[in-house]
């Protein structure tokens, strides 16, 4: 009765099927390729899409990094990393530069990625038009007909209502001048990192059973109007209270005693590297895990 777990959990047939979907996704940048998403040992919506991509491409020589909300030590990141390590035995790292595969939820690392790396993003809602059209059948048609008026209209309505575009994370992007794509709920701050990325970016939505990709050196532009240009989250005048970094995406924290607001790098491994560089000795407790 007791079965030994196969390398990377899946049987080879399943991995091959997923890899085929990935190849198609790479060949048609930004196009959502349906795939037979398998049920995973972690919950649907907790990164099963990313995990399936990681497991189907990982080899023994790979080095894996898993991030959740910018942190390697976030419980879900630890959990996914543990599962991949348990079923493959591959080395894991928290250093962005060392990793060959980086699976992430909601962030692209601050350190620029390289050609040797594959960025795997977990996607909850792959359909950029879902908020304007609930039907899958209809959105598929809209993509085929290159009809993205719904997405533009959404931005236009926000400008009418609020005086500016009011998107949060997951601001839609146009890939290779053809498909509008949900970049996964990365902050607008990270959208620009997708443009002409040296690394291959794979996006996997397990529950919605879609795989899509941004191949290396592909144009990715955030949807915006000429008179209302795309704006990223601003941390002007703010710096990380630990490593003093500026121009990075930051978490806003509150000092419980004084009630003061202070900021800290969201990318914990970047922050650590900065600190190590400057030889500060500090214990960084990851608040996310508590």
């Amino acid at each position, binding site marked *: 009765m007791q079965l030994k777990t196969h390398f990377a959990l*899946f049987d080879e047939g399943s991995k091959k099927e997923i890899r085929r979907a990935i190849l198609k996704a790479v060949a048609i940048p930004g196009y959502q390729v349906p795939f*037979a998403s398998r049920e995973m040992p972690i919950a649907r919506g907790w990164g099963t899409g990313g995990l399936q991509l990681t497991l189907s491409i990982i080899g023994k020589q790979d080095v894996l990094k898993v991030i959740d909300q910018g942190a390697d030590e976030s419980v879900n990141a630890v959990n996914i990393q543990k599962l991949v390590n348990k079923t493959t035995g591959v080395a894991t790292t928290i250093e962005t530069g060392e990793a060959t595969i980086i699976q992430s939820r909601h962030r692209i690392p601050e350190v620029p990625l390289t050609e040797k790396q594959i960025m795997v993003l977990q996607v909850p809602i792959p359909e950029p038009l879902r908020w304007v059209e609930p*039907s899958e059948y209809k959105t598929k048609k809209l993509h085929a007909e290159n009809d993205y008026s719904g997405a533009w209209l959404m931005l236009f309505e926000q400008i009418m209502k609020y005086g500016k575009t009011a998107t*949060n994370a997951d601001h839609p992007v146009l890939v290779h001048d053809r498909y509008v794509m949900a970049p996964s709920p990365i*902050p607008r701050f990270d959208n620009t990192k997708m443009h002409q990325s040296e690394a291959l970016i794979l996006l996997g939505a397990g529950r919605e059973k879609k795989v899509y990709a941004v191949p290396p050196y592909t144009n990715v532009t955030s949807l915006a109007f000429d008179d209302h240009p795309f704006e990223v*989250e601003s941390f002007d005048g703010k710096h990380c209270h630990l490593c003093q970094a500026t121009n990075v995406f930051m978490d806003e924290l509150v000092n419980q005693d004084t009630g003061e607001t202070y900021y800290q790098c969201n990318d914990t491994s970047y922050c650590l590297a900065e600190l*190590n560089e400057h030889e500060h000795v500090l214990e*960084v407790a*990851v608040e996310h895990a508590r």
Partner: protein
Amino acid sequence: MAYVAVKGGTEAIEESIKRLTFERIHAQELLEIKTIMATMRGMVDQVMSESSLYSEFLAALAIKQSEGNMEEAVFLLRAHRSTLPRLYYTRVVETDTMAVERRISASFKDIPGGQILGATYDYTHRLLDFDLIDESKAEMKDWLDQFIGEEVAAAKESNLSLLPKVVDYLRKEQLLSEVPDDQTEPIDVTKQSIQFPTTRAERLQVLTRGQTGAVTSLGYAAIRGYGAIHPTVGELRVGKLPLTIGNLSDDLENDYYIGDIKVTEVESFVPISIPKENNTEEIEFEIGYGICYGQNETKAIAMSILDQSLELGSGVHPTQDEEFVLLHIDSVESSGFISHLKLPHYVTFQSKLDSIRKIKKESEK
């Protein structure tokens, strides 16, 4: 170079898992897998049905591991299923070969072969039976000996393995339209994701894997008002179906018998209007079909309602919208996405804060 230590997640997870084990065993009582298999039939059946994996043993193990938490047990079994290669597809089964344990019809009083109540809670009074608190093995044995004696005597008189189908009677009466035999190879929804519009085979697969509660609620909605459906249960059967797989020579005689599965099958009759040439209408019956692993009659009936809703529905009601129904009834998918809200959303929330603050600033101008 000095090194900054990171800690948190790994330790927290380990402690949490320890705590979970403690909760399961702290009362120092252990449930045997075989006890679950023997006494938790309803739960085992439901878990197998929603998991699309027919194994009473594995379902019982999942129930034990999940402390009887249904969504968790189904989750465990589905995840296990993903690690198994699919080696064969069984031959198509004609359900009239079922070894029937229970069979009722709400359409005809006197169905050929008769109504067979079998085991059902339907006519029990739902009063707590305080005698069960002190049930003894000796009493159990006495009761069993007597019952089995009576059963053997009764079983000699009847053959329950080739009962005629109620639909066949309606067909003979020409009250059901002839449906051409569709021999298209069905798409396996676990090997290929569904694309809309779907085929009926895909719909039936998703419905039968659906969460019992969700399928029941939507079926209920369809007959209560959100879908003008008034079905009559033509035939409800519970029994065992023999399964075979083909051999290489494709010679039916030499198929391999691989065991049997217990299923609940329902054929509901739904009257529909058929427009005629001279602006008049005629009424005919349409069949809604439901089948699921084990004995789970509510789910099978609800499935038959939703099958008919999706097959013929005008799309006015959500229960007739295949995307609405099929994409939301899966236990693992729905519970997974709801539970992902427990994960941190610091980044998206920070992004939202930024957006809200900018809008506020804009409106103050």
